[in-house]
């Protein structure tokens, strides 16, 4: 068990980030948290309240090029050979590592008493999201060096990473316009705990045959790393005079509760039911930005130098025997390369997610099925929920190197109100064998759900390049507010 936990944790850390792909939850209207993916989702209960800290826990990790097993398998092979084979040679600069965690702190919703077609929801969640593209050229330079790479232009732009932790305060409303249309929106206030991004880097480092001397080294760089909140964290970790965990918790609480950088965002969505059995929906999630103006620390590295080493031309050099040619070279490099830091404010866009789904349902509508739970039939309920639903979903997220799309097909089976199962098959850049399974269980007013992606990967978690697990616990009422 310890091995499993260790491997899972290492997978998450090693795999950094995959991007918030929650195709099982999207459209799963039995689960209140589906409102966070489409604010127009039509829920059929009067109110719900998430169990604090337990209503939604999402952990995702992915790597598009390598798995933990590739590197750490206990197979007797030399780890240096494995890293060269699987990472230096096997991965490209387009491969990425990503990780996301999403933990709801508070979440609730209720139907408006004066207008049952209107449903409000609100809450607060914490999100950690990070992605780093594989710094292939920089890794080769760092691990193997430039000696065997004459004329190769090592691309400084391979450094491409961003990440953040923030709290999101949100309030949303969904409105059923008529039997076909519903719309929804959610306003968000972001409170950033920390952020870093380095996504617009350019430049090369090249070693060529020299014109005068044996080799010519050329460095062109235009690089920047922006950060906020990290310096305070480093300062705490460096300070041995206090408890790091307490100080970090205090800092996280302060910055996460509107005491740090702030931003605003919006979710928008709609559902359209051209017929009672057909449904089309789409949503935009996290259309927003955070303005980083506290504890910012940015680093720049810009300039261009070309050198063939120390150059001494005689007899001219004999005229000034005290001339320090080495220092001249250092001065030349320092004059032409600017390594600096500043504390300028900056804006970081949130990673926008776009979902759209088309589905078809059939089978006896839920209202007519036998049900062993106690609920009240309400006229304002959304479209009838049939026993079976099949459909497809397209998803994309805006990442530093462009769109990162995914396609999914799903089948959902409802067993009365008490149980609903959903299976999905997803294709994305991480895996072509992503089978997912979700279950929503209602026992009285208690709603429990678990959604697990890439089930085949669970056969050997360490070999999986994508892992996702979502669980949650809510209290739901179909009665009066």
């Amino acid at each position: 068990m310890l091995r499993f936990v260790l491997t899972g944790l290492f997978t998450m850390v090693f795999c950094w980030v995959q991007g918030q792909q929650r195709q099982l939850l999207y459209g799963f209207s039995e689960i209140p948290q589906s409102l966070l993916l489409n604010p127009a989702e039509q829920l059929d209960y009067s109110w719900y309240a998430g169990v604090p800290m337990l209503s939604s826990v999402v952990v995702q990790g992915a790597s598009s090029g390598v798995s933990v097993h590739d590197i750490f398998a206990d197979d007797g092979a030399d780890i240096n050979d494995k890293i060269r084979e699987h990472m230096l040679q096997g991965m490209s600069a387009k491969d990425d590592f990503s990780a996301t965690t999403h933990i709801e702190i508070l979440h609730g919703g209720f139907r408006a008493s004066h207008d049952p077609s209107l449903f409000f929801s609100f809450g607060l969640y914490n999100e950690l999201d990070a992605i780093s593209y594989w710094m292939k050229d920089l890794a080769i330079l760092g691990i193997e060096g430039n000696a065997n790479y004459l004329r190769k232009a090592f691309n400084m732009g391979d450094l491409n990473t961003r990440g953040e932790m923030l709290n999101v305060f949100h309030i949303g409303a969904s409105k059923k316009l008529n039997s076909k249309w519903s719309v929804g929106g959610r306003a968000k206030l972001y409170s950033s705990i920390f952020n870093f991004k380095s996504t617009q880097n350019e430049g090369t480092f090249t070693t060529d045959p020299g014109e005068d001397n044996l080799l010519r080294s050329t460095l062109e760089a235009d690089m920047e790393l922006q950060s906020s909140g990290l310096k305070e964290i480093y300062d705490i970790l460096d300070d041995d005079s206090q408890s790091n965990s307490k100080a970090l918790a205090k800092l996280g609480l302060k910055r996460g509760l509107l005491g740090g950088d702030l931003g605003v965002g919006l979710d928008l969505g709609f559902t359209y039911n051209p017929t009672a059995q057909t449904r089309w929906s789409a949503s935009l999630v996290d259309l927003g930005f955070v303005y980083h103006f506290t504890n910012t620390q940015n680093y720049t590295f810009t300039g261009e130098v070309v050198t063939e080493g120390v150059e001494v031309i005689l007899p001219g050099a004999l005229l000034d025997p005290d001339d320090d040619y080495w220092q001249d070279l250092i001065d030349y490099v320092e004059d032409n390369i600017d390594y600096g830091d500043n504390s300028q404010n900056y804006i970081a866009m949130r990673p926008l997610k776009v979902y759209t789904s088309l589905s078809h349902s059939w089978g006896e509508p839920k209202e007519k099925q036998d049900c062993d739970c106690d609920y009240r039939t309400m006229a304002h309920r959304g479209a009838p929920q049939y026993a079976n639903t099949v459909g497809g979903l397209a998803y994309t997220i805006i990442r530093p190197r462009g769109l990162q799309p995914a396609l999914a097909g799903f089948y959902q089976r409802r067993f009365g109100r008490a149980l609903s199962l959903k299976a999905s098959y997803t294709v994305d850049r991480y895996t072509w064998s992503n089978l997912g399974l979700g279950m929503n269980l209602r026992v009285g007013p208690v709603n429990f759900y678990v959604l697990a992606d890439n089930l085949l990967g669970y056969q050997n978690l360490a070999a999986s390049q994508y892992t996702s697990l979502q669980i949650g616990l809510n209290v739901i009422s179909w009665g009066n507010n």
Partner: protein
Amino acid sequence: MKKGIAFCFCAVMLLIHGACSEKQDFGQWDDFEVVPTLEASLVYVEAIEAMFNVAQPNVVYTMDINFDAFNAEFFEERVVSGEITYQLENTTSKPLALEIDFLDDNGAVLFSEDFTLSPGPDSEDRTTLFGGESPNNIAIITSTSALRASVTNLGDASSTSSLPDPKLVIRTSGQFMLQFKGSQ
């Protein structure tokens, strides 16, 4: 129905709980080595033939060149082995003797390279290893803070080469393994 619910619940829990992983050995990380081999030009020296004709034969021209790259902390603490490549080219009309000395902070000679070049055109390529299995200790490199080039004209002081732009050219480059992680 309740049995069905319980069954499904247990099935999902078992699925998650039953997730497994082949045995991994994270201790391998200790064996991971980051020892890049970096190379760059070091020093380029050029001396025209007219310089040798100004003075009498057998006069030694000596020049010390400050070179702190080798004892920079970043380099000194990490270098484990390396090599220096020389490419000498003589297009003067004179035979030349060249000595390159590696000097420490006090000016003491740590290591020397001697070359003899025939009247041009003549050239010599040489690569000298340091550290590793070489007899030349890498400490020679890390203790070096200056290079001294001494050239002796072994010929006359009046002839002029018929080759275009006659001169002595010394080209050097270094290739060094730097250990950032792991053992060698």
